[in-house]
């Protein structure tokens, strides 16, 4: 039992953190967001580094690594609030890789892995998948229908772009009934992986909210002392850490299960999404609160995190939806999470 990243995974994490600290600084995030577009330069760079193909087979142009390595990158991209179509493209590629026929994989996965195609993945609810991240501008949209268990690959024409409160990425509604091609093996495996990936990104958002807040309250002085010496502030920060650390456990357990214990993936993925949806919302709200007045301003940057968290928490279902799924799982059999 080793519940931590190994040396190679740590190296990936360090490299990603370093790269994104300069290439996806808040200045760059702000510039992209204020212009309502992606940071194309950053996206090109990530594609050249092969990031979108991290968890894609080498046979389909990927790096052949696992969900843990992908989760590491997504955590860092969430941490940086990077304005790229990374998440959607990766979700589409993973879903097609998991459930497509060989011909379907050949057709879409290499392009998505290389960044030549942009993708998105949405799950239908009442005939529409709302606010699908990276859907506006996508070439390929995987639309999963939980009612039938099927997934369909649509062209980007099916997307109705929406300007969401999170301007760091392009969202869209996708309606059922468009012309598309059904994936051979259904939707479940792709959706479970998408849950893990989205959770990893939310974990990064939560961690950034915590780090920014702790740094701020150590510096900011009132009554002659740092506000971080006040217990009311400390206790909220401690809760943020519990939110983030719990999410880290749940996300990496699920990412590990995707490769090593697929029979546990469905439950683990719901657990990760339930926890991180709540955690990202509460940590980013706390970040604004603990920054005080400045935290409510456009220039303070914590709002990018709060906005990401709101959209990310709702995507593929939030805590409520997944707690219900988890109750069903718990009722079916005793938990056997580790070991």
């Amino acid at each position, binding site marked *: 039992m080793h519940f931590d990243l190994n040396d190679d995974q740590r190296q990936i994490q360090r490299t990603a953190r370093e790269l994104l600290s300069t290439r996806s600084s808040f200045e760059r995030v702000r510039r992209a967001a204020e212009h309502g577009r992606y940071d194309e330069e950053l996206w090109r760079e990530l594609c050249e580094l092969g990031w979108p193909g991290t968890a894609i087979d080498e046979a389909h142009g990927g790096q052949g690594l696992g969900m843990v390595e992908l989760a590491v990158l997504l955590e860092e991209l969430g941490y940086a609030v990077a304005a790229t179509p990374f998440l959607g493209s990766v979700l589409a590629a993973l879903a097609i890789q998991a459930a497509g026929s060989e011909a379907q994989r050949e057709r879409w996965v290499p392009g998505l892995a290389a960044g030549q195609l942009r993708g998105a993945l949405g799950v239908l609810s009442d005939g529409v998948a709302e606010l699908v991240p990276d859907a506006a501008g996508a070439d390929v949209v995987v639309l999963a229908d939980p009612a039938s268990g099927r997934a369909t690959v649509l062209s980007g024409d099916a997307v109705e772009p929406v300007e969401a409160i999170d301007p760091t990425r392009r969202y869209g509604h996708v309606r059922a009934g468009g012309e598309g091609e059904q994936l051979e093996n259904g939707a479940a495996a792709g959706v479970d992986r998408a849950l893990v990936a989205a959770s990893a990104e939310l974990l990064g958002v939560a961690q950034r909210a915590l780090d920014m807040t702790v740094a701020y309250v150590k510096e900011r002085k009132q009554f002659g002392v740092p506000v971080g010496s006040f217990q009311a502030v400390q206790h909220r920060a401690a809760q943020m850490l519990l939110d983030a*650390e719990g999410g880290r456990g749940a996300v990496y357990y699920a990412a590990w299960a995707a490769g*090593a*214990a697929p029979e546990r993936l469905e439950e683990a993925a719901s657990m990760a999404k339930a926890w991180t949806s709540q955690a990202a919302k509460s940590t980013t709200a706390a970040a604004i609160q603990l920054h005080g007045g400045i935290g409510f301003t456009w220039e303070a940057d914590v709002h990018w995190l709060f906005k990401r968290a709101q959209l990310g928490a709702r995507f593929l279902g939030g805590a409520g939806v997944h707690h219900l799924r988890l109750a069903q799982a718990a009722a079916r059999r005793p*938990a056997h999470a580790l*070991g």
Partner: protein
Amino acid sequence: MDLSFTEEEAGFRDEFRAWLAENPPGEAPGTPDEHFEWARGWQRRLHEGGWAGVHWPAEYGGRGATLTQTAIFFEELGRAHAPLPANTLGLLLGGPTLMVWGTPAQKERWLPPILSGEEIWCQGFSEPEAGSDLAALGTRAVKHGEEWVVTGQKVWTSAAQHSKWCMLVARTDTEVPKHKGLTYFLMDMEQEGVQVRPLVQITGDPEFNELFLEEARIADANVVGGVGNGWKVALTTLMNERAGLGFFLQVRLRQLLDRLIDAALGNGRFDDPRVAEKLGMLHARTEVLRFLAYRGLTATEKYGQPGPEGSLVKLLWSETNQMLTELTPEIVGAESLTAGTRWGYELLRARGNTIEGGTSEIMRNIVAERVLGMPRAGR
């Protein structure tokens, strides 16, 4: 990242499981005293089977189990509905503290009867005026010749009425700053100067005791770690407090939740989505607790000793147990509010969880200051 047990870990688990299957602990008896005798007999059997003190090094009669194996031991113990061994405080706290600070003679005298359960240990740290602020304790020890004379009061002392030895921290020097004037003693409980009075809790059970010390005597040979060094020695004890126990408590929480889910399935309350959602939330929290505990183990194995991250586990466990028990009236109904029922007991007992072993408020202070590096709070 590898979340499966190694062959060695799985082998350890299977071996202990097999032993438990052949040596079932039996049903828990009703009264607290009977329960204690049950736990004492249980420790004897564990000891005979070579399963007491699994985490103790082989040279002291243990199995030299790794941290993960120790976690597995406590998980399996919980899973088998076995009690904690009667001398858990000796096994988890007293023994390991002596291994670090004790002289060879002290180890030889005290370790074997801890392991066998022949001598029961209790912990005399907290006082009425020194709870979270432990270093403010006022029990005085004054040296007279070759022995120390101790006067003062301790509180929250579990198993004191059954104990032979008490890990006692007392003030031996009032002239120095509060952390520096403390000394750690092993006090014989069987003497005139020690009076034990049961402390009845909100459950109606006397799980803890008050300890009144009126010129109690302690031989100088029973000082652990040197005079004036008591704070450091006490910290060793406290560091060990949350190590293995967390896994046992986590399994107990799991079992209680499974019972609650079964109850909800049985009486149809599960079909109410508001109830199911809460059960799903408790399920997630219980699993995440386990992830955090194992992540803590990995970190401990890497850095050598348990870190303050254990405070997160304690926070999450205690608050989840309270949430769970607070949900029972909604699911189980009147029975959970009826005196003498298991659910009624659990509901009341859970209130202590966010106080014992460090209040949630202190845990949050510790997390903020030691993990997040925030400036020390004005208390």
